[in-house]
């Protein structure tokens, strides 16, 4: 065991910090990641005074030999077991850069901690033990790095002292691991032979490896470059929240790609609403900014009061994100319970949250053998799988190959983030044609000077669709008429539109009954009525299509106006329908009407005293 010293070797660090970078150290358990980190600090003289002495004292007290790894394994349990349990962030300034070096655990049991560390990193040092060679976690970590978006990797072949610094041993490991990384489209910047314990090739080239001409680990850090391309992409601004603390209605969010400036026309997906940027708001900045770019947390105001809520993605008109309810993705699973088909999860993509389920598990990707494919109905903890997801309502997204932040997501199982994925493909759902129609129609829409917000203020309610569903003979028509009467009696602009009313007029040319065309025309008429600011009440039976399809199509065509669904049945048998309200064998229709009105109020559709937190898009 070498006695720890603070050797002066490389030039002292340049004091002024110009930039910062996050680096993660990964690799198989016991291959020496924490030792490498400790050594890097000790040999550059960047440890606080007394740190080594403090750890030495603890080691002595416990009758253990000093190890550099102990410098950052903070928990008593970590030091006792000699393993890293959780990711540690350490700070290291060198050559004008402030590095946060994240030491990730290599034990399979702590993979979720490794992933948490690596997800924050812009570059990685992947450590492989020269004696043990490439192991399971060496490969799994390589695969996860590529999925987490860490594209810059330098491989450190550690413990070269245990193989007498033999060049052929090093070359064999380098060849094997380069071949593996090539399959993941990762090209390592350097592969460095080193011994962290002995301080070989850590901060300067060492005579022990005369056959190696590349940089030391320390010098290799300067060759990682900072991500700067994101600002050059087209704009992506996922909306995080809408604030009304004072007279300003400020939309906030972090720009994940591209740039924006005052005057830009923004379109919000999937609502397809658009408006111009009026101001860019900031606190304690004089003069206020006129533009912003990727990475910045911004606040903007618009020249028109349009519907905007958290989860929508703002872009320029000519480069919108994709929209669907189905996506294909590569997913890594960290949940204690396996991922199951048809179990409910919540998908979070940028700031959007939506219920979802797994439609198909195409294959499990085996990290140790990338060619191996087999079919399963569950994805177990620490496995990677190729899957198709189905979301409850349409989401805006990008392919990961095009946009990093809007091309990835996490799945939440009950209270926990349990998996992460990158989107590889848009899978078309049956709404694709209607969605295209709605988008093109909205883009070309000729607007008057009165906006939806003006109408809402004037009328005391917002536009919405109330759809009564359920089998025939449940008095849906009766309730619909009653609801219209009560609402109009309160002074609301409500209108009952029975689908039958289109048959002899607008639909008179439909000789052969085409359900798709009937629902399309019905949806467009409802869309027109909602654009007048009305509450449209309707029933479903005359449309002769499955209820789910009717609701989805209406939602697509009137988007982003909400469709409130109310199911009526004589009695409830079997699985309950997924509607906003359910009435089983109602007797008191006054009560039903009041319940519907209460629901509309709770959704902020009918005027109520403004709540203290006025971020609801419907609050009036």
């Amino acid at each position, binding site marked *: 065991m070498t006695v720890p010293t603070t050797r002066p070797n490389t030039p002292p660090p340049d*004091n002024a*910090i*110009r*930039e*910062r970078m996050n680096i993660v150290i990964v690799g198989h358990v016991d291959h020496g990641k924490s030792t490498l980190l400790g050594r890097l600090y000790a040999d550059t003289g960047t*440890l*606080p*005074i*007394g*740190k080594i002495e403090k750890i030495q004292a603890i080691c002595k007290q416990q009758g253990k030999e000093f190890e550099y790894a102990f410098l*950052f394994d*903070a*928990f*008593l*349990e970590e030091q006792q077991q000699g393993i890293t*349990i*959780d990711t*540690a*962030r*350490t*700070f290291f300034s060198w050559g004008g850069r*402030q590095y*946060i070096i994240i030491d990730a655990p290599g034990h399979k049991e702590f993979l*979720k*901690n490794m*992933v*948490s560390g690596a*997800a*924050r990193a812009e570059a990685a040092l992947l450590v492989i033990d020269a004696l043990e060679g490439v192991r399971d976690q060496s490969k799994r970590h390589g695969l996860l790095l590529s999925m*987490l978006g860490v594209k810059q990797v330098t491989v450190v072949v550690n413990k070269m002292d245990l193989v007498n610094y033999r060049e052929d041993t090093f070359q064999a490991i380098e060849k094997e691991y380069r071949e593996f990384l090539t399959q993941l489209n990762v090209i390592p910047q350097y592969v460095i032979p080193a011994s962290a314990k002995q301080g070989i090739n850590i901060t300067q080239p060492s005579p022990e490896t005369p056959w190696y001409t590349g940089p030391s680990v320390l010098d290799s850090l300067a060759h990682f470059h900072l991500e700067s391309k994101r600002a050059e992409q087209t704009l992506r601004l996922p909306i*995080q*929240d809408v*604030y009304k*603390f*004072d007279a*300003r209605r*400020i939309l*906030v969010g*972090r720009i994940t790609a591209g740039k924006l400036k005052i005057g830009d026309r923004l379109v919000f997906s999937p609502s397809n609403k658009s408006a111009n940027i009026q101001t860019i*708001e*900031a*606190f*304690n900045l004089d003069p206020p900014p006129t533009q912003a770019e990727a*990475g*910045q*947390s911004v*606040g903007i105001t618009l020249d028109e009061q349009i519907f905007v809520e*958290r989860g929508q993605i703002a872009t320029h008109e000519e480069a919108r994100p994709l929209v669907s309810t189905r996506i294909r993705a590569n997913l890594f699973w*960290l949940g204690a319970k396996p991922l199951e088909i048809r179990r409910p999860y919540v998908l*979070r993509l940028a700031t959007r949250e939506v219920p979802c389920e797994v439609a198909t598990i195409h294959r499990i990707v085996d990290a140790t053998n990338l060619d191996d494919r087999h079919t399963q109905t569950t994805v177990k903890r620490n496995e990677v799988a190729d899957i198709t997801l189905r979301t409850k309502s349409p989401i805006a997204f990008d392919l990961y190959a095009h946009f990093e*932040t809007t091309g990835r997501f*996490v799945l*939440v199982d*009950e*209270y*926990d*983030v*349990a998996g*992460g994925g990158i989107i590889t493909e848009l899978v078309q759902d049956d709404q694709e044609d209607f969605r295209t129609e709605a988008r093109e129609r909205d883009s070309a829409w000729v607007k008057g000077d009165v906006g939806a917000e003006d109408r809402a203020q004037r009328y005391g309610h917002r536009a919405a669709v109330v759809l009564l569903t359920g089998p025939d003979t449940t008095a849906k028509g009766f309730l619909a008429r009653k609801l219209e009467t009560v609402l109009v009696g309160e002074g609301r602009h409500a209108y009952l539109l029975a689908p039958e009313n289109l048959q002899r007029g607008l639909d008179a040319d439909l000789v052969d009954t085409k359900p798709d065309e009937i629902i399309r025309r019905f949806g467009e008429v409802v869309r027109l009525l909602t654009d007048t600011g009305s509450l449209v009440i309707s029933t479903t039976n005359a449309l002769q299509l499955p209820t789910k399809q009717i609701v989805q199509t209406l939602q697509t065509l009137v988007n982003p106006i909400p469709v409130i669904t109310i199911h009526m049945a004589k009695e409830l048998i079997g699985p309950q329908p997924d509607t906003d309200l359910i009435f089983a064998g109602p007797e008191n229709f006054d009560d039903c009407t009041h319940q519907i009105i209460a629901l509309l109020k709770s959704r902020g559709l009918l005027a109520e005293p403004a709540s203290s937190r006025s*971020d609801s898009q419907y609050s009036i």
Partner: protein
Amino acid sequence: MKHIRQLEDQSVYILREAYKNFDNLAMLWSMGKDSTVLLWLARKAFFGHVPFPLLHVDTSYKIPEMIEYRDRLAREWRLNLIVGQNKKALAEGMNHTKGRVECCTALKTQGLKQLLEEKGYTGVILGVRSDEDSTRAKERYFSPRDKNNEWDFRDQPPELWDQYKLSFPPGTHIRIHPLLDWTEINIWEYIKLENIPFLDHLYLDQGTGKRYRSLGCAPCTTPIDSTAKNVDEVIIELRNTKVAERAGRAQDEGRGMEQLRKDGYM
């Protein structure tokens, strides 16, 4: 200063996530440089407003200037300030001579716990930084605490990209740490950049050759030798020092901090 603006953008994003997702949210403010920067970042995030209460757990042993500064900023910035205190422990005569870890546990950890229980906060924002001590280096930005306020560091939730832990079982709460990636130097760089009012009488040398580097209770915090008379000189001093920031904080000795933090210390 680009690296400071990057840190600011990240912290603002975290604060806005916290505000959006936690109905009953509060921020701890100890009047020290870190939690004051945190407070400033909240004003950044919410355009001059601070839309949640600020909690101060008063041990009664704080340096008097700190209390004056607290009340002045609370007035000027229209803050909703809530002061908590473990009155029972103080009535029973708790002080540092009964043991530093014991005193911190009673007056700070228990004081905070009482305040959280009384008000039922589900999200608490704190200004802890990774470089302060090695247990804080292992924190998440959004870190769950169980019913007893305890931190289960063996089983922390995964934190992927900018997706944080936003849901939790009843009875538990989440601690939110927007400053984890900031270093001590970054804090001072930001104070200078934004011209944030701080306790200059304590943090700068007033001609005695000493200044406080970290502020806590008067009996357990000692000033360091320093001739730094302005923020620039503090930054230069910190760039060249190798003494740990909390070297003047008595409760950190031995394994004090790991035990304190596991039990719910900030």
